């Protein structure tokens, strides 16, 4: 088998995956590693523009999942799979570790139970520590810590690059990526299912529904009525990079029945993050931040780390978890319909994505879709590094000597160079919008939010799009 794109010979894809988030991209990648033709349909104008772009970006060990659930199994497996994949592709990741902090007696008493739960999940490296040890690791925490539980392997990762790597990999393995293809109708036939989209019809023998917040809608189009998605909003503050020395580990709250609670975490880009909130909404598009959300976060932050709140905020955003009315992932195949649902991937989908894809593959095979791994697959893509833990282009003297575009800093706050912007515009999955460029390079994401670079970045994006396909912007003709 070869790595040439596998387009359907009769206009009908073997599998159509709906949703270009982390889960859909991971599934498309997995399936296109097999001898089938795959299409990935995404409603928006870029992959990773839904929930997958706006989360807390933690690579979870799964220590606190509910033992015995599918989620706990896939998060634990996903941790290892994504760690290895990050290594192979250059997705920025930092194994910082976490400390779960108890602020009152009740929380302190919950720690042994959490340690046991972790062990039931197969994670045995948690340790209960006293307040002194917590302060030794996190000297700037607010007053009143009583103790903590360490989770040495909890990590931070770049969610944007993860999504892009998976989708790029899928594409290089032959997946056809169809952007602006919002699925609005489904017509089941004996041989193939026709998906009606804003950009025309797409036909496929099998359909995988990984539409995140829209998964229940698609499910209904297939005639099911098994669940309803509740958008659960999470708002976050990103603090200035100058705060990064305050927080070297993920600071977790003791989880309650309502969710994981507000955490403080370093980011892979060198910031510190505070959040998220958890608020059930009805509008699945409402990713606005809110006054109440801000007030809540600030009151939490005041307690957790007052010093942090004295610093500048760089950004704030909100993401919507696809919560459903049961406490596990809902992944089910309907063999008679050649259809598979991936629903309720609420708050761990970034970590579990690749493991979910593996699981989905198994279910599809069982349901009757033969999936044979191809012998020769293209190597995984090498992603541009936008993390702070390893060398960035602006720091790489050899690289700049070879191509001075990497020595021209365009976005000063984030130190993004012209070379990186150019590359992102000509990548296999190119940036087509400012938002897409921001996620690929970090450009305009810094403390000035475009005061200095906004206009220049807009111009560069335009310049590189007008000569799309031409990749010769190098040293000699600059």
């Amino acid at each position, binding site marked *: 088998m070869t790595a040439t794109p596998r387009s359907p010979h009769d206009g009908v894809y073997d599998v159509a995956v709906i949703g270009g988030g982390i889960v859909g991209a991971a599934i498309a990648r997995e399936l296109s590693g097999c001898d089938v033709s795959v299409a990935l349909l995404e409603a928006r104008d870029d992959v990773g523009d839904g929930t997958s772009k706006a989360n807390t970006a933690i690579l979870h060990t799964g220590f606190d999942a509910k033992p015995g659930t599918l989620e706990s199994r896939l998060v634990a497996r996903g941790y290892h799979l994504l760690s290895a994949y990050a290594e192979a592709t250059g997705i920025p990741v930092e194994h910082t570790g976490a400390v779960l902090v108890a602020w009152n007696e009740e929380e302190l008493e919950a720690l042994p139970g959490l340690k046991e739960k972790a062990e039931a999940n197969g994670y045995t490296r948690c340790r209960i520590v006293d307040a002194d040890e917590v302060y030794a690791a996190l000297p700037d925490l607010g007053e009143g810590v009583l103790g903590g539980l360490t989770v040495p392997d909890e990590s931070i990762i770049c969610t944007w690059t993860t999504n892009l790597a998976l989708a790029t990999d899928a594409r290089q393995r032959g997946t056809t990526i169809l952007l602006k293809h919002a699925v609005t109708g489904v017509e089941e036939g004996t041989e193939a299912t026709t998906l009606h989209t804003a950009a025309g019809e797409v036909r496929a023998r099998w359909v995988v529904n990984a539409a995140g917040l829209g998964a229940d809608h698609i499910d209904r189009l297939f005639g099911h009525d098994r669940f309803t998605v509740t958008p659960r909003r999470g708002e976050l503050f990103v603090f200035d990079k100058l705060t990064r020395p305050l927080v070297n580990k993920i600071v977790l709250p003791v989880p309650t029945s309502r969710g994981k609670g507000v955490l403080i975490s370093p980011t892979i880009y060198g910031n510190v993050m505070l959040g998220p909130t958890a608020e059930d909404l009805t509008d699945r598009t409402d990713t606005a931040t809110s006054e109440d959300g801000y007030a809540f976060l600030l009151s939490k932050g005041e307690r957790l780390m007052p010093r942090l709140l004295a610093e500048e905020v760089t950004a704030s955003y909100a993401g919507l978890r696809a919560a459903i009315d049961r406490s596990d992932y809902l992944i089910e195949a309907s063999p008679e319909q050649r259809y598979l649902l991936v629903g309720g991937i609420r708050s761990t989908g970034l970590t579990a994505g690749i493991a979910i894809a593996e699981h989905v593959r198994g279910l599809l095979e069982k349901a009757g879709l033969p999936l044979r791994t191809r012998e020769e697959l293209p190597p995984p893509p090498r992603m541009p590094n936008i993390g702070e833990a390893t060398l960035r282009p602006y720091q790489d003297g050899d690289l700049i000597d070879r191509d001075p575009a990497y020595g021209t800093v365009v976005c000063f706050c984030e130190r993004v160079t012209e070379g990186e912007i150019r590359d992102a515009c000509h990548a296999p999955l190119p940036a087509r919008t400012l938002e897409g460029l921001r996620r690929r390079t970090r450009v305009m994401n810094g403390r000035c939010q475009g005061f200095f670079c906004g206009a220049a970045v*807009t111009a560069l994006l335009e310049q590189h799009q007008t000569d799309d396909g031409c990749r010769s912007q190098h040293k000699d003709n600059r």
Partner: protein
Amino acid sequence: MTHQPRLITPDVLIIGGGPAGLTAAAELAGRRAGKILVVDREQDAGGIPRHSDHTGYGLRDLHRVMSGPAYARHLLQAATAAGAEIRTSTMVTGWADADTLDVTSPEGRYRIRPRALVLATGARERPRTARRVPGDRPHGVYTTGQLQNLVHLHHRPVGKRAVIVGGELVSWSAAVTLREAGCTPALMISQYPKAESYGAFNAAGRTVLRVPVATRSRVTRIIGKGRCEAVEIEHLDTGRRRTVACDTVVFTGDWIPDHELARAAGITLDTGTLGPLTDTALRTSLPGVFAAGNLLHPVDTADVAALDGKHVAEQVVRYLNGERPSDQGVRLIADAPFRWVAPQLLRPQDPAPARGRLLLWTDEFVRFPKVTVRQDGRVVSRRTLAWPAAPGRVFRVPSGLLDGVSPTGGPVHIGLR
């Protein structure tokens, strides 16, 4: 890494080629203070005036008035003619060690170790996010800096109807730029009871600008998916809220110094300005490191920044000649309604501050301000000044009011009556 970064060793490195940095360079090169190098991360030197394409520059330093771009060109030319070297597209990204800076440019990644350093990195406006304004994240939300870059350097269109947040001098500058770009400034929003910066414009200017002002108000939400559609504003006294339709929002003023390099070096910052704490010779807490311009007083006019540059040059020369400051000194402290004072440290034998003025920022409008200087519970001096203290622009106080201060006493408080 195989790469061994090159090292260059000028006598003076000036970081930032805005009015402060370029003027310091011209002055130092003119005094033959050795090899003077200015680096700026932008493609062209000149700082903010490059894209501030309206008149109003150069009055106090050049004694004539010109446009921002013309002023920037003039300062660049003067520095070059005096013999300073200017390297653009050259960004200082951090400290390699206590005396050496890391630099990225198209010519490569290298290091600079000067004998003396002047930080002149300027200030920026806080964007919407830093002001913690919630809501959607649509296109069309800018700072004045971004707006002027878009309009004057890149000739790009903006929207049709704008709301300007802030009532500072720069807010009126934003209004001018919007008009030029064919966008109507529909409303200006100011937290103050009056848009006091009106006073800075003559009657003619005011008629031309004619922008309705919602005073005692703040923005509570940005509305719009894709493109901005409206803002929600609140009256601070009544709590009443309303939405104002607009496709463009410009967040103006609310400055913060670009103090990253200063902070990274562990230089002491002033908690009021958030810039480096300096004495009247513009020395920072790190020997051999000076600071000038809006990094110290966010934000004053360009000519004042330039005159800082002139002032600092002489102090740098003294430092290069081996002179060291007295380690005595008293702190200047701004009492409310003042938010900050610059400089903040008074040492015996030091020169008067640049232009013989202390710079302060007030949160309240006072038409006939009676400035009082106190030390150790004693009134050192008191004077009613002939110009108002107005929010949104720097308030200048003659440094002669400090004449009676004891260099060995306690902190000196500057307040109103």
